């Protein structure tokens, strides 16, 4: 899992109301949500994203409402990976569950400049900004199992198949 792209920079406490306004929540289509991503507060964001770009953000990214539409909208807009100094708890879980790669790396965020190129190598645990690399902590095993399956839905699918094969009553 290596992602290389241009940086879109955000500050601290970017909340999910800003990421995707509640008026758009009746929809769950990633393409539609992607077009609405940051549309109220940073109009034109979706047009500025080239598929594969990265978000670099400060502390507590994704705070506020639990809407899972937020990581889906970011992914739908074409963002390959979000690197933040820290994430809100619900957003962190949800991003992994829907298959949006994320990384915690305050040192890299501090050096990140909007429009510059950066890369995130989640396999090696390395974020590279302005020619300098920073290592990131490993995911807990429970999360690796979900990421390895490609998200929580395929993980569920495998568990259901396994249970059907072994005849576990459901």
């Amino acid at each position, binding site marked *: 899992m290596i992602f290389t792209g241009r940086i879109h920079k955000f500050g601290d406490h970017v909340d999910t109301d800003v990421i995707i306004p*509640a*008026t758009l929540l009746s929809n*769950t289509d990633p393409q539609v949500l992607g077009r609405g991503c940051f549309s109220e*507060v940073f109009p034109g964001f979706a047009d500025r994203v080239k598929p594969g770009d990265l978000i670099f953000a400060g502390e507590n990214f994704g*705070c506020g409402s639990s809407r899972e539409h937020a990581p889906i909208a970011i992914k739908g807009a074409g963002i390959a990976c979000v690197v933040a100094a820290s994430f809100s708890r619900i957003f962190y*879980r*949800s991003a992994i569950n829907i298959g949006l790669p994320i990384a915690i790396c305050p040192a890299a965020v501090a050096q990140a400049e909007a429009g510059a190129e950066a890369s995130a190598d989640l396999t090696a645990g390395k974020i590279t900004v302005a020619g300098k690399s920073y290592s990131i902590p490993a995911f807990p095993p429970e999360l690796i199992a979900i990421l390895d399956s490609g998200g*929580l839905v395929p993980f*569920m699918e495998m568990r259901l198949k396994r249970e059907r094969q072994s005849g576990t009553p459901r």
Partner: protein
Amino acid sequence: MPSTIAQKVLARAAGKKHVAVGEIVTTRVDLAMANDFTTPLALKQFHAAGASKVFDPDKICVMAGRHMPFRDIQLATAVEGLRIFCEQQGIKHFYANCEGMDHALAPELGLIRPGMLIMNADSHACTAGALGAFSIPMGSTDIAYVFAFGESWLLVPPTIRVRYTGKPGPYVTSKDFILATLKELGVDGARYKAIEFCGDALAHLDQDERFTIANMAIEMGAKTGVMEPDEKTEAYVRARTQSGYDVVRSDPDAEFEATLDIDVGSLTPLVAKPFLPSNVVPAREVRGTKVTQVNIGTCTNGRMIDLEQAAQVLRGNKVAKGVRLMITPATASVYRDAVKSGLVEVFIDAGATVNPPGCGPCAGIHMGALSATDVCVATHNRNFRGRMGHRDAQIYLAGTYVAAATAVAGAIVDPQEVLQ
């Protein structure tokens, strides 16, 4: 081993004698919940994974009462899909006929009891903590997994203890307790941690007032907030359900990561300025700020006690010219009680509008979205940029007395300065 409420509930749900802070455990849920906006996505994921049956229809609750009557075709269609799913699965706890919004309705119906482990696809799941339940917000896909298997992995969080002492002065409410806490902890001061609210000042609060405090634990990034039940809690629960429960308390020698003491006797009515709920100052510091809209209601402050406080201020008064005052009872039973006790008449006479039960304009969806030039005082829990409509709309959070007194004055006031 001494344990906090968080450790005890999670240990029981994981089938273990003890769990340590930082441990990741697989826990069985006592109740799984979701609402109008988060259930459709949960069901999409449930079906995408090939699941066909929920783990236990009696332990699932779907409450689609946030934005009734429906705003648009999409929402109406989505909720009809939920009705069909619940019927097929035999889920009896399905509410989609204007009964009210989930965080107020579920406790009213006796679905929330002390010591329960609840997983809920909504960030304000923590509201249930006011009854001593450990109620954890999650995303829709997490809840899809819980619907299928009745379990999920959880990190055992450290607990921050917030202790309220002293006797609050006039017009200082539980909203001021929690705003004062937000000022201290900030919007991420409890990130990935549990908050245990305690202290003798809580004993003086009605159960309705306690929900306001637990409701805003998430505003500090907490995994959840919880209060130790007392006689008032148990009286509230027993009046609503025959089901048994076990009260869970932290051991006296349990380890807390930190303790924050707040003397509520020293507080004056507070507001949170735009655009963070932690941007808290005394109301008098922003007195005179002209407003165009005032909202009273939501899962934070939409219960009978709030409407009584609002009526206390509005009785015999008029909403100022150029101000819209919207009052939204959180549930149908609050609405009914407000009508029967004459509060609605007070509101209408004062020039307010009473919305149907639900979330009202809190998330900017309908029933009072804001324009670029609007300035709003709301009893809600969030004042993020764009939350209630236009990105430039100014949102101030406050308790009910401040909100009602502001509606009458047409500008932010401290009720201690203007009311007798």
